[in-house]
């Protein structure tokens, strides 16, 4: 209530209308029966919030002549790009910068060495300039200021190095390393190493023909731990590049499983006493929040499983997420309705069929009437925009429809007499049928001489009174069936609402969130004549030589949020 309410208009995408039996999900766009309350669209239905979009979010398919929303278009990735080639702070999400760990002596000091102008020397760390987190807090330092990603992959939290996959492979090949078996330290086994060890182990098992020992024969018959199922599973997880052993398919013998860390066995460390004692000493402040843990990428370089990633010192710098440029296709006709240029630096679009250039935009403004016109308006001054609406007192809203296309459109509006929901406010659209002139060139309008302009204006108003389109004048009366104001390609009409009282009978559940917002469901039908030949609706201005015209129609539900009702 503290912030002023901004009126909004959301449009329902017809894609959500596939279940006509579900009455609550919304009315059908093909049968406009706005007077029938049962068929009226209910903006408060739980499913409605998934189908309502501001006009900017909607696209328009020129071939299907239908609105398309972000949920119903098919996206294709045009290009990936890296927005910022460093890391994000794991504590806040600020960008990290490479800085020298050693602080430089102040060049203004007399004791400063002469070479203070030289670039900073290592070691280096990643520092967040927002929350002052540095990677030295988790014991990570770098020797070089560049190639941070590669350096980070070799470092564990705490500064101990780890072997990369390549190094591990070389070490396995090295006979001198094989000769002296290292102590089987399962803590040395991180995600990557464990996967590599397991893969090597199972590949060895598959290649070995003499593994069909008799143990677990029953299970072997079922196919568990048999070479066949194993090679199938491995081809799933390794991209099918694995060996396709025809012979293995015929074998059903069981294989043994990994027995030591070198073969990929990792014993879960269920002893959490270390974590508990650490929690005792460091307290909750030393633990990472859920958001911080969620932000962490799967940690490939740390030992997996229990007791990890709970403390702040297990957090690692997060690489920036890649961004994409995506093109969009109509789900029905597969035509492309949006396509950005593939070059990363440009922001232009090759194709961009947005709904805003095909269907009229609706803007809402509260109308301050100095004198009531029979409907009992007692607003003494101009209504404060965004102020709560008084219950049971009529309020007037100006709906301005702006026509984006180069044809005159005929708009028909329908709204239920009372808004759906627990608090039924009364709604009256004073002028439910009107025409909006075409979006002609601004210069055509300006170059017309005054008399013609005046005649035009009179025609537009459909009356002979001296009309001045400049502002709201006393000539503007709240009359049923009359347009309030008209412009080059826009028309304003008045909607009268009588907000319901929010008083609740005892025993009723309390007001839900945003239940005090007065939302008007409105069915909008737009009709216009377009050229037959060209499928482009708004491309070419009308020419007299093209006789073949066809009627076009577009109908959809929208929701107008006009204001909050004052609570007592």
């Amino acid at each position, binding site marked *: 209530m503290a912030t002023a309410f901004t009126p909004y208009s959301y449009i329902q995408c017809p894609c959500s209308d596939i279940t006509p039996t579900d009455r609550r999900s919304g009315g059908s766009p093909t049968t406009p029966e706005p007077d029938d309350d049962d068929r009226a669209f209910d903006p408060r239905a739980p499913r409605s919030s998934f189908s309502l979009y501001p006009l900017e979010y909607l696209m328009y398919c020129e071939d299907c002549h239908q609105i398309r929303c972000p949920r119903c278009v098919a996206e294709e990735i045009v290009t990936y790009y890296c*927005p910022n080639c460093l890391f994000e702070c794991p504590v806040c999400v600020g960008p990290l910068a490479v800085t020298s760990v050693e602080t430089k002596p102040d060049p203004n000091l007399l004791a400063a060495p002469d070479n203070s102008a*030289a*670039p900073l020397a290592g070691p280096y760390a990643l520092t967040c*300039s*927002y929350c002052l987190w540095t990677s030295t807090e988790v014991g990570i330092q770098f020797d070089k200021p560049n190639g941070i990603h590669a350096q980070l992959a070799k470092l564990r939290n705490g500064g101990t190095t780890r072997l990369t996959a390549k190094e591990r492979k070389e070490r396995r090949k090295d006979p001198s390393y094989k000769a002296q078996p290292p102590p089987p330290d399962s803590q040395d086994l991180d995600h990557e190493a464990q996967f590599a060890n397991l893969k090597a182990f199972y590949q060895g098992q598959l290649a070995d023909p003499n593994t069909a020992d008799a143990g677990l024969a029953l299970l072997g018959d079922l196919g568990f731990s048999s070479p066949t199922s194993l090679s199938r599973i491995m081809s799933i997880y390794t991209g099918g590049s694995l060996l396709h052993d025809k012979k293995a398919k015929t074998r059903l013998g069981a294989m043994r499983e990994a027995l030591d860390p070198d073969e990929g066995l990792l014993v879960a460390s269920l002893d959490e006493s270390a974590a508990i004692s650490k929690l005792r000493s460091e307290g909750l402040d030393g633990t990472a929040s859920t958001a911080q843990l969620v932000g962490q990428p799967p940690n490939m370089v740390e030992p997996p499983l229990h007791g990890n990633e709970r403390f702040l010192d297990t957090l690692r710098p997060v690489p920036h997420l890649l*961004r994409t440029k995506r093109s969009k296709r109509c789900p029905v006709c597969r035509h492309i309705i949006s396509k950005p240029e593939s070059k990363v630096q440009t*922001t232009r*679009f090759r194709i961009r069929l947005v709904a805003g250039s095909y269907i009229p935009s609706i803007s809402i403004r509260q109308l301050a009437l100095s004198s009531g016109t029979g409907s009992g308006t007692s607003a003494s001054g101009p209504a404060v925009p965004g102020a709560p609406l008084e219950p049971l007192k009529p309020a007037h809203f100006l709906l301005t429809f702006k026509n984006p296309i180069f044809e005159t459109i005929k708009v028909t509006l329908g709204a239920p007499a009372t808004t759906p929901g627990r608090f039924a406010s009364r709604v009256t659209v004073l002028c439910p049928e009107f025409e909006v002139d075409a979006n002609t060139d601004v210069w055509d309008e300006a170059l017309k001489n005054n008399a013609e302009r005046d005649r035009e204006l009179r025609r537009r108003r459909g009356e002979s009174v001296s009309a001045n389109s400049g502002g709201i004048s006393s000539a503007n009366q709240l009359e049923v069936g009359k347009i309030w104001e008209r*412009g080059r390609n*826009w028309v304003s009409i008045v909607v009268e609402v009588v907000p319901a009282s929010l008083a609740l009978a005892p025993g009723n559940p309390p007001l839900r969130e945003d239940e005090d917002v007065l939302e008007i469901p409105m069915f909008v039908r737009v009709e216009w004549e377009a050229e037959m030949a060209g499928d482009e609706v708004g491309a070419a201005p009308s020419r007299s030589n093209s006789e073949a015209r066809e009627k076009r129609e577009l109908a959809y539900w929208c929701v107008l949020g006009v204001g909050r009702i004052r609570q007592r």
Partner: protein
Amino acid sequence: MSSRRAPRGEYIETDTGNKVARKATLVGTQHIMLGGKTVIQPDAMIRGDLVRTIHPSSQSGGNAAPQNNTAISIGRYCFLSRNCCLRPPGRFYKGAFTYMPLRMGDHVFVGPGAVVQAASVGSHVHIGAGCVIGEFAIIKDYVRILDGTVVPPNMVIPSFSIVAGQPARVIGEVPEGGHEAFELRDLYKTVGNNPQPAPH
């Protein structure tokens, strides 16, 4: 910025269409470049005095080309609201502290009370009220920064991002139909010494 002094209005309107409020604080005007049709509202501050003191080419010498001493360059149709502040970012460079120029594209809206210390702001950018843009941030084109956002220093905001929070994070994407909302031509007409009403 020569001004036609004849009508003494609230704004000084220059030949290139800039509308600069008399009550705006412009420091070091010789280092401020306005592209034209830019609105600077009262009490906005532009720190043109924080000019670059170290030039990368100064060591190499040789050509005596005139040093580009622009501290802040602003494109066309920018709108600097009341109490906002544009300030070039500064840092240590080769052992000495120096300011770096702040570049701003076209159609950039800077909300009331916002402080901008970015290295560059692209075109069609909306910076909400009370935002703080940290030093050396890079904001690309078609970016909407919601009110009260604190963009940390050195952050790079890719095109078509909607950014909010303290510190700022990307919370959404600007939809295809939302590009026109960044246009500031109509807003430009609504301020000045003889403002036009906003079109419907």
